[in-house]
């Protein structure tokens, strides 16, 4: 556990303690796991706690593997896992909170209509110096945009290319989705990848970018929600027992249509559409 989570945890603990003095009977749920799922669960928990003051939810990160291990050993109430479960993890009960999808974006004026996986690998290896080779404007060099180390979007995209994340070569390194969208919108030769939700929102707002299909499947929220989009993954919560009591209450709350605005705000795709 890193020091910051420890501090945050102790503050929460202190808060929970003072809270408990007033409440008649309170329940505390502890969760560990994926740093992609954790912010989503934390936001959902914040809203949940407002309407359920006797339940506290404590969220810590540590990676999907830790989420699985902790849930299995029963040291936490639920684990957070940002991938589909493996066959040897079928002993756990899974609830999918939302889906995460990554789409490749280019400038709206770029004539390219699609890029294959092989094209993307060549681009991110720095082997393409002319858009003409990929069906774009002849004589224009691609400006490749990638995310900074550690971002889950980078990991998901790199795993689709089957490349180690640190081997992706680029001309511009960005932090969050918005910076990526603005960078591509400002450069007709740029190619990058961002969360699908963020890209579609920006397009709807008139930003001059284009979302490319993958393997012939158009980049839509529906394709991400049903898992058919190639660069997508479920954001899961896992438990050792079928969820009951306070946890079941929280999961029902989290999956309700009323909470889809939180999912959308974090650029994820709600399970039941928007």
């Amino acid at each position, binding site marked *: 556990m*890193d020091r910051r989570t420890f501090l945050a945890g102790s503050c929460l603990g202190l808060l929970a303690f003072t809270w408990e003095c007033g409440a008649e009977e309170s329940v505390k749920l502890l969760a560990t796991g994926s740093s992609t799922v954790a912010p989503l669960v934390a936001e959902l928990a914040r809203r949940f706690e407002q309407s359920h003051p006797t339940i506290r939810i404590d969220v810590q990160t540590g990676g999907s593997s830790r989420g699985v291990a902790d849930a299995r050993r029963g040291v936490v109430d639920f684990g957070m896992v940002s991938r589909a479960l493996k066959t040897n993890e079928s002993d756990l009960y899974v609830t999918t909170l939302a889906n995460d999808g990554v789409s490749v974006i280019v400038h709206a004026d770029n004539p390219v209509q699609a890029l294959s996986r092989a094209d993307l690998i060549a681009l991110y290896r720095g082997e393409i110096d002319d858009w003409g080779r990929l069906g774009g404007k002849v004589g224009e060099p691609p400006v490749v945009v990638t995310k900074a180390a550690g971002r889950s979007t980078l990991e998901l995209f790199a795993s689709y290319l089957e490349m180690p994340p640190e081997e992706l070569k680029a001309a*511009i*390194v960005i932090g969050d989705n918005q910076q990526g969208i*603005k960078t591509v919108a400002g450069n007709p030769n740029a190619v990058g990848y961002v969360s699908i939700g963020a890209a579609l929102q920006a397009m709807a707002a008139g930003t001059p970018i284009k979302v490319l299909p993958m393997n012939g499947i158009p980049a839509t929220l529906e394709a991400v929600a049903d898992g058919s989009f190639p660069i997508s993954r479920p954001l899961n919560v896992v438990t050792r027992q079928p969820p009951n009591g306070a946890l079941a209450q929280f999961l029902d709350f989290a999956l309700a249509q009323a909470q889809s605005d939180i999912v959308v705000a974090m650029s994820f795709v709600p399970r039941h559409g928007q």
Partner: protein
Amino acid sequence: MVSDRLLHSLLALFAALAAGLLLLVVGFIAQEALGLLQQLGVGAFLFHGEWQPYAGRFGLLPMLLTSLLLMLGAVAIATPLAVVGAACINFYLGRHSAILARRLVEIAAGIPSVVYGLWGLTLLVPLLAAIKQPGASLLAGMMVLALMILPTIVVVVDAGLRALPTHYRENAEALAIRRSGFVFAIALPAVRGSVITGATLAAARAIGETMVVMMVTGNLVQLPGSLFDPVRALTANIALEMAYAMDEHRSALYVSSLFLLLFAVALVLTNQLLLGWRGRHG
């Protein structure tokens, strides 16, 4: 008497508190950084060209030089413009337009840096990209930073010019010295100290700036071969990676914070040195 003593001790208490907080920050950063510094030695950070935190390589040299270049470039662009601007406000504008210009400069000094960054990202970077791809570059960083620190220098130099004794100007007029002669031969040399202080303050702001630099420089870790190459500054590196860093990687980011702190100290010392030199000889 009693109330004086009370006030004195209260002031001393608050001063100590402020200084203590600063020491705590420095202490915290040092504590987080020292483990890795001792383990790898300073050389591993300074003389290694590669930043691959997941492979345990923490070369800060490209980013250190980038931060330094960005700062020097921004100050070099902004200082002459600011000095001319301040002179214009004081000696060439009418009373009302001078007041208007001062208010505008003050507003510009207060604009959040992220706004300058957004402007750079959506306007300047595409313009530079039309000259040479990818646009996000060392030059873009210098230009946006220069724009951002310009008002700070103007404010300081302007204050210096306004504090000049009125008899300088009266005597110059009595001697029938032309306005340009007065401005460039008398007024501006007399406020050399303000120019140095303004430039140092601005330099400190430029080297510590994070958002602007992260938005317009491309953030590629490399030694720039030209002004049009994308680069990554130390501050941008911390902002980009801190949220996802663990263990050694995290400590390495604290080491880069320590270097930034050293920069700040060096800047203050340089300012003192330059002002001191002027005090003895000027």
